[in-house]
């Protein structure tokens, strides 16, 4: 069974879209992260909830044309989401809830 992910202290994060990149300011660490698609969309899909990458994929596929993410990528979109979530965990922005 896949692990679920949850953003830590969503109220401490400020997400600002700029262009193909977005800013993510973390009040707790004082660090500004500059993130590319689909990382900001994953954060918005998660909100305050804990979700599996497959659940996030379903939400994003309803909202966006996912073809653009999958073109030229050998990984599936779900794998791309899981990789971004693991990066958030490594940065201290998200936590992994082991199932």
């Amino acid at each position, binding site marked *: 069974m896949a692990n679920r992910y949850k953003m830590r202290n969503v109220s401490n994060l*400020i997400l600002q879209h700029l262009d193909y990149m977005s800013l993510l300011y973390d009040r707790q660490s004082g660090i500004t992260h500059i993130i590319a698609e689909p990382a900001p969309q994953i954060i918005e899909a998660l909100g305050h909830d804990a979700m599996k990458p497959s659940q996030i994929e379903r939400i994003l596929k309803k909202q966006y044309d996912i073809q653009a993410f999958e073109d030229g990528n050998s990984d599936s979109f779900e794998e791309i989401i899981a990789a971004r979530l693991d990066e958030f965990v490594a940065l201290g922005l998200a936590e992994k809830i082991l199932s």
Partner: protein
Amino acid sequence: MHETHFKVGPASFRVGSVWKEIIDQIEMLYASYPKPKLTDYTVTLDAIRPWRRFVRPSVAINGDFMLPDAAPLPLSHGLLGAEMGVNLQMALGWRRQLILHASSVEKDGKSLLMSGESGSGKSTLSAILGHRGWRFMGDEFALIDHDNGFVMPYPRLISLKNQAIETLKKEAPHAQFGPLMKDTPKGDIQHIVPPAQAIRKMEQGAKPALLLFPNYGYDAEIREMLPSEVFMRLTQASANFVGLGETGFNTLKHLVLDVPTFEIAYQNGDEAEAMINQLWEQL
């Protein structure tokens, strides 16, 4: 100890030194600046050892904020030491506005910001434009107000390096120049007092309308920049972004979202001025 006081934009300084000649130079060049009653920062230019005041005199820069490994300078470069000490206080201590390593000029109540690496020409361009119908606001630091996003002037003495010295002597032959300091760590340096109106209006900010990243010495080109690239460049160009926390983040975010930004490459001041005028008219 000899000392003098002066105010640049919103910041006031007390500079003290065991050498009267350094203080005399500063007083001459800062004669038209306001003398504050209270000071934000103190900078002292001391002898590295008491006897070195007389024997091969070397100036050590001290102040409220200091870098412990700053190399001492020969006495003939004392004015540069004062400038470095004053800059250091701003870079390490100032919190009232977001500090960008950028020059700025104003026209029709709107400001033009120019940021870039040392040698990009931002300082020289601001000095030239200050004698061609723009109000000079600063050649080194632009202070971005947290409340309204305005650029607040910081019109310290303009620090001219190498070829820029001759360029400005032709552009503004009647301006007041400081002593020529040869072979400093930054090459030849000479200071020039900003135009009188720059000092008279140094508490008058202006809404930023255009941000440029000049590149001196390349074929003429104008390239529009995306906000994400601008944000990255300006975090590197800011002295206090990290320390300001969320306040600094919000101030910088609004600047990059609101102000059109271009990179311009140019070979000389006339070419840069033409590009700037073209972009300014398109606003």
